[in-house]
């Protein structure tokens, strides 16, 4: 076991999969010599060569589109979008091909591709570097969407994503890249896609979150504990498919539900989670299922981002309101 941050954990997962399977390729912008702008792919080009780990011309549609071709030809591309805010030029390839190839060819061609991208805010970045738009991908049939909240999860989930024959959008909370260190097992292990994890059992309210906000919810839980509120915390891990069962079971027990997510509120993941709770646990509800989501705004630049990002206090405030409902 090594102590790793999320950058190292992702690197380790890529390393293991590159070593294990000659079909795995890693490419994107600055992932080679540079080792990625966040150093996530550091050392991999030296180790696996320029035909397996390489930089492309600066064009996201080209990156994803050529990866579709490689996948069809039997390879397993793991591509990087330098920031999730720059995935949009590739949107047509993702929605029209990555997500559809398997269905339209009735399984003849699957697309075992992973599209990795750092996402989310609170790193005092420039425009387009702080977005959390996972809901766009969650809404597209044919994709899986995965977001880890710890180095351990990042490694296990990424290995599973690379092994998946379905395309996976793998979003890495860049705010956590170097913020948490943790023991991560050596060698290969996987965490199943589509399963949530109950991080804390509790009685009064179910909180569902993922990515960088999990930590903030945990801090809010300390505040809640002081007022006698016991929170059940679920880390979604996979945003599609969503593990309805784990959520439902919990809400049936607690009767209260709060989702804590970063992206814009309207038609966001929080809305989906509220809907699931309604569908599967309506009769258990003692308060309206509630979402704490990002504002329906562009994330503000550095000076304003502390307003946009949910502080432990804000999360606690919502928990309290719900428990007191």
């Amino acid at each position, binding site marked *: 076991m090594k102590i790793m941050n999320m950058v190292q954990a992702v690197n380790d997962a890529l390393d293991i999969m590159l070593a294990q399977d000659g079909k795995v390729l890693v490419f994107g912008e600055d992932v080679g010599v540079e080792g990625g702008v966040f150093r996530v792919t550091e050392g991999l080009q030296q180790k696996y060569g320029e035909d397996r780990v390489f930089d492309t011309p600066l064009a996201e549609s080209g990156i994803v*589109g050529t990866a*579709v071709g490689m996948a069809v030809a039997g390879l397993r591309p793991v591509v990087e979008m330098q920031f999730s805010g720059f995935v949009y030029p590739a949107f047509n*390839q993702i929605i029209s091909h990555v997500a559809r190839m398997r269905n339209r060819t*009735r399984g003849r061609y699957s697309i075992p591709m992973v599209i990795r991208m750092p996402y989310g805010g609170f790193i005092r970045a420039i425009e387009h570097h702080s977005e959390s738009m996972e809901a766009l991908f969650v809404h597209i049939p044919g994709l899986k969407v995965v977001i880890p909240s710890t180095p351990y999860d990042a490694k296990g989930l990424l290995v599973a994503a690379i092994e998946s024959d379905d395309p996976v959008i793998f979003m890495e909370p860049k705010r956590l890249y170097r913020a948490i260190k943790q023991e991560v097992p050596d060698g290969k292990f996987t965490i199943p896609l589509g399963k949530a994890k109950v991080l804390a059992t509790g009685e009064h309210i179910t909180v569902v979150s993922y990515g960088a906000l999990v930590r903030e919810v945990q801090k809010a839980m300390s505040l809640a504990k002081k007022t006698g509120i016991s929170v059940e915390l679920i880390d979604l891990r996979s945003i599609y498919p969503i593990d309805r069962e784990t959520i439902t079971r919990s809400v049936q027990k607690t009767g209260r539900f709060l989702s804590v997510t970063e992206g814009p509120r309207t038609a966001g993941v929080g809305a989906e989670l509220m809907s699931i709770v309604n569908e599967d646990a309506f009769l258990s509800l003692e308060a309206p299922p509630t979402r704490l989501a990002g504002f329906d705004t562009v994330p503000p630049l550095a000076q304003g981002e502390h307003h946009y990002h949910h502080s432990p206090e804000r999360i606690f405030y919502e928990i309290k309101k719900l428990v007191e409902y």
Partner: protein
Amino acid sequence: MSSSKTKSKTALLEEYGALSGKMLQILDYEGRVILAERLPKLSPEEMVTAYQNMLYARTADQMAVSYQRQGRMYTYPPNLGQEAIGVAVGSVMREDDWLVPAYRELSAWLAKGASMKDIFLYFGGHEDGSVLAGAKNMLPSAVPIASQLPHAAGIGYAMKYQGKKDIVFTFVGDGGTSQGDFHEALNFAGVWRAPVVFIIQNNQYAISHPRAHQTAAKSLAVKAEGYGIPGIQVDGNDYLAMVAAVKAAAEHARAGQGPVLIEAVTYRRGAHTTSDDPGRYRTEAEEQKWAERDPLKRLKGYLLAQQLWDETNEEPLISQYKKEIDQQFTEMENHPYDFKDIFIHHYTEIPDDLKQQMVAYEKFLNWKESQQ
């Protein structure tokens, strides 16, 4: 002709390079040889087969249009007048080579092993028409314009990476050259020296939009300069010129020298699709002009002059084709449809949530039946 008199294929890409301002033409509009030194080496059988393939494609195409008119099939994009291009590619393409089509290359699909049944299934509203089980290394139609080109570049990379000698043929229209994906695909392929032959079917229109307004570039072939790869403009209605160009390009790609861009100058003699009325945007005089340059007419002219073809063969052959094609159409009409197919192919394993949607829908179907 003696082979010593024909010039080398690679030299062709230079002599007719994108900046030469020349269009490669071997047959005139009547099928007379006007550039003997560039005549591709084809056996009489190959010539005849090519003509028959064009004839088959044309027959199938016209039948597709008429099935659509009868309301037995949905919107279909005719290939009429562009048959030489696909057949030429088909004659050079090997079994293990890849074909990455747009949606107007009937003749090339057939060459790759797609059946008319597959094609009818697709345009008859069956997803099964994109399986193309008989066509090795072929992708289904790509409807979003130019989005298939990066796939071709990626497959090209994969061939190189896997140490294979197979190459990729991919198609796009004149309109498609304006899309960002055209640019990115050619640029990636250029940087990677990927073994891809990009074929632009410049049929003069993108639906109603004429080539002249699509780009201010002198030719579409000239766009190759921007990617540091060879480009060549060819008379796409001249089967022999197309074969010469595709052979040269394929040789270039297969030899590890990277991609080639071919602009095949042709004309969409039919409508854009069966929903389109070309009368709104082009003249009969223009259509007539291009009818005179028809690729079948020209190759037949050549074959007749070489006494390789007997006009009286044609009718019976077409009848035979029609029977075969109609048979395949009937198979399509009897093809089963299972609503569960809507749900089960998106993922290797159906997600619970989606399964619940399927189950809920089936419940509704049962309820509905119970109401009758």
